[in-house]
């Protein structure tokens, strides 16, 4: 990442974005293939038992599903290049505004989950590392392994049963209250359970990475020097260790954004969060090809951008890294 030729930071960013084009093309081809090779027919799913042969055939013709697959893909790609993601089959609505609206909700959830992950994961990792092999270390790592292993839909339903059904502290579904509400406080109130559900697994992954990363730095000479010159342990860890341990943690954080976007699909379904994930589940079940393809394209683009951002952040945290 350090030596990528001339052009400075801007040139680097442009090159990285250009490299994203074949990636996105590959993703779109893959999603198209998987969706169309999976058995199922949007017309049959829509019509159900009332279907007549004529109505199924007519729907196929009007949706362009009677054409060969390569032709369908080429037509879709051609329109995408002009900025038209088409219309959802059952919804009849344009895909682009639809996925963008939903994506906002997903970003809020992912952001909340990331906050939970960092707030729990990083301190837990530091404590574990600085008190290696203490009971606190063992406990937090045990919790971390459990956190990574629990499926989000299970965690989600358990949290609903405890905090919504039994204790009645928090709402069980949605992003805003059905009446009144609609403000920031209402949003936070609804965000707590889904964000904790989604953030737990990432917190665990983050804790483990922070722990090993800090452990590696703590053993280095400059830390010993810092201690030798009489700095308080808090200052040693805070000022010297963390600064140097942060890069691998940022890498994991970047990867976790991808995991969170994926995990959001289940979390959103459990909590009826109006994001891209819950929409995608329905779209896949309905074989709503345009909506699924549009949604995946948006997620893939986000992932590419986050990866780029992570690479750029390295330079911020580590002055030795320069993009030239």
């Amino acid at each position: 990442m350090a030596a990528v030729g001339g052009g400075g930071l801007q040139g680097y960013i442009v090159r990285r974005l250009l490299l994203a084009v074949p990636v996105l093309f590959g993703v779109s081809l893959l999603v198209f293939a998987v969706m169309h090779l999976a058995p199922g027919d949007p017309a049959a799913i829509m019509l159900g038992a009332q279907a007549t042969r004529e109505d199924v055939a007519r729907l196929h013709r009007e949706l362009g599903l009677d054409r060969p697959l390569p032709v369908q893909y080429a037509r879709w790609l051609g329109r995408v290049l002009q900025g038209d993601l088409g219309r959802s089959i059952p919804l009849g609505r344009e895909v682009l505004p639809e996925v963008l609206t939903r994506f906002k909700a997903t970003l809020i959830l992912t952001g909340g989950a990331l906050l939970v992950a960092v707030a729990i994961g990083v301190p837990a990792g530091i404590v574990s590392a600085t008190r290696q092999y203490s009971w606190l270390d063992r406990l937090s790592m045990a919790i971390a392994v459990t956190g990574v292993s629990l499926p989000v839909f299970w965690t989600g339903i358990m949290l609903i049963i405890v905090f919504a059904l039994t204790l009645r502290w928090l709402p069980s579904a949605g992003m805003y209250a059905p009446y009144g509400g609609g403000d920031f406080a209402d949003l936070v109130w609804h965000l707590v359970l889904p964000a904790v559900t989604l953030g737990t697994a990432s917190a665990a992954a983050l804790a483990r990475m922070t722990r090993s990363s800090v452990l590696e730095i703590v053993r280095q000479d400059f830390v010993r020097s810092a201690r030798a010159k009489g700095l308080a342990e808090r200052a040693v860890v805070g000022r010297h260790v963390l600064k140097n341990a942060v890069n691998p943690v940022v890498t994991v954080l970047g990867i976790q954004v991808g995991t969170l976007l994926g995990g959001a699909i289940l979390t959103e379904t459990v909590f009826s969060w109006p994001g891209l994930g819950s929409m995608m589940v329905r779209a896949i079940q309905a074989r709503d090809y345009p909506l699924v393809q549009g949604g995946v394209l948006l997620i893939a683009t986000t992932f590419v951008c986050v990866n780029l951002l992570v690479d750029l952040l390295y330079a911020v945290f580590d002055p030795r890294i320069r993009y030239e």
Partner: protein
Amino acid sequence: MRIRRLAGLALLAVALTLVAGADAAPPKDAMVIGLLAEPVTMDPPQITDLNSARITKRIFEGLVAQEVGSYKLVPGLASSWDISKDGLTYTFKLRQGVKFHDGTAFNAEAVRFCFERQLNDKSPFYATGTYPYVKSFLGNVAGVEVIDPYTLQIKLKAQLAPFLQYLAHQSLFVYSPEALKKWGKDVVKHPVGTGPFKLETWEPGVKVVLARNDQYWGGAPKIRQAIYVPIIEAQARLAAIKTGEIDLTMDVPPDSLDGLRKDPNVVVAESNSSAAWYIALNTRHPVLKDRRVRQALNYAVNKDAIIRDILKGTAIVSHGPLSPVYGPYHEENVQKYPYDLEKARALLKEAGHAGGFELTFLVPESGSGMQSPVEMATVIQANLAAVGVRAKIQTLEWGAYLKKYLEGPDMAEMSWNPSIGDPDHMMYMLLSSDRFPPAFNAGFYQNDKVDDLLRKGRTTTDEKARVPLYREAQKAIVEDAPWIFVDHGKQVIVHRKRVQGFKLHPNFDLVLTQVWLQ
């Protein structure tokens, strides 16, 4: 330390929002309904799913309506109608002075416009949507004519008894032509009808708010607003109804029903529905083509245990394709298949399969109206094993399942709750030989006598003459056992005590016109 102070402040803020949020109480004149999913579309002829229908049927109306709580037809936007002697010409007198929510007038021209949009693929408005049921519901229409502003004539190509019921189906509901011209394809999110409620807001994935139509011709509804929120997860619906966050919902976990019945704050409303849950048997299969074998399978399955232990009493045993909801059309006096292993074994032996045989058993993971498909399949598999029939379960996701279902599986689960309140829509659609796949007679059931009765049934407009046709057909079908008849699911709606006057409808609709809040 500064960080600590900030963290403390943040915690305080979170605590405050929690307290503030917990205070939100439902308004006195607005009702919140938790649906399984948000609506797909609000354009009547494009609707194929129950959630969309449950909302849009409040906004739009048809010429003919169903009485609340039954399939009995009553006047809707047409105040009366007349059917010609040959059964081919329907003349409707329309209500006068009715206005669409956008202020434009409802009249015969508007009705013609709505039908024309679907029927005439050369009309400029045809391309504003796809019409999944146009052939099913309008395929038999020869012409629609405006006689005068409030008289409309529809001519049919052939006699079709369920036609009036079709007019009570949302795909033939009437919407404002001006709204369609204004919105084009985007009419899917801008519904303008004549109904008791009109759309106030629709935030995708969040909520749909309907407001009372004070000018409604049938008298304004009592509640000011109906708010629909999608709650996908059953546990979350349960939590929301118990805490009073929502006023009405459905499909809560069956295990929770006992507790809910004892809860003083909620009412569990139950009624029989027109749904049928069955296993289609492939009548062309080398072993299953023998009627005795299919009867044996019916005897072998313990329906009572399934309803008691898996469905927790939310269904009744099925004795044929039509549930008792169909009133006079339902035939009680059919051959019965109680749980009887001896009889099953005897029939198998008689058919030369005493040693048993093997079948592939197609099962969906989930699906509309499928109840608990996997658990039920497991019990049925064990039941069949007791008489030597080895059913190999193959589980598929719903979309993939539907495709496989229509490719002639040995035996496959299916459930249907017709949106049309006519026996034709259950029996002809699922059991006539005119309806082999890709239509829904997936077991290729064919009995000439039944075919004849069902064809006669759909072309006889005199109800008195129709009833015996369907009753006779049911007897023949049940004796032929083209399905394993399992259960008719009940509708179970849970609502808060403050909701008054709510009535269940056999096709799972949620009618709100007569509802008030205490």
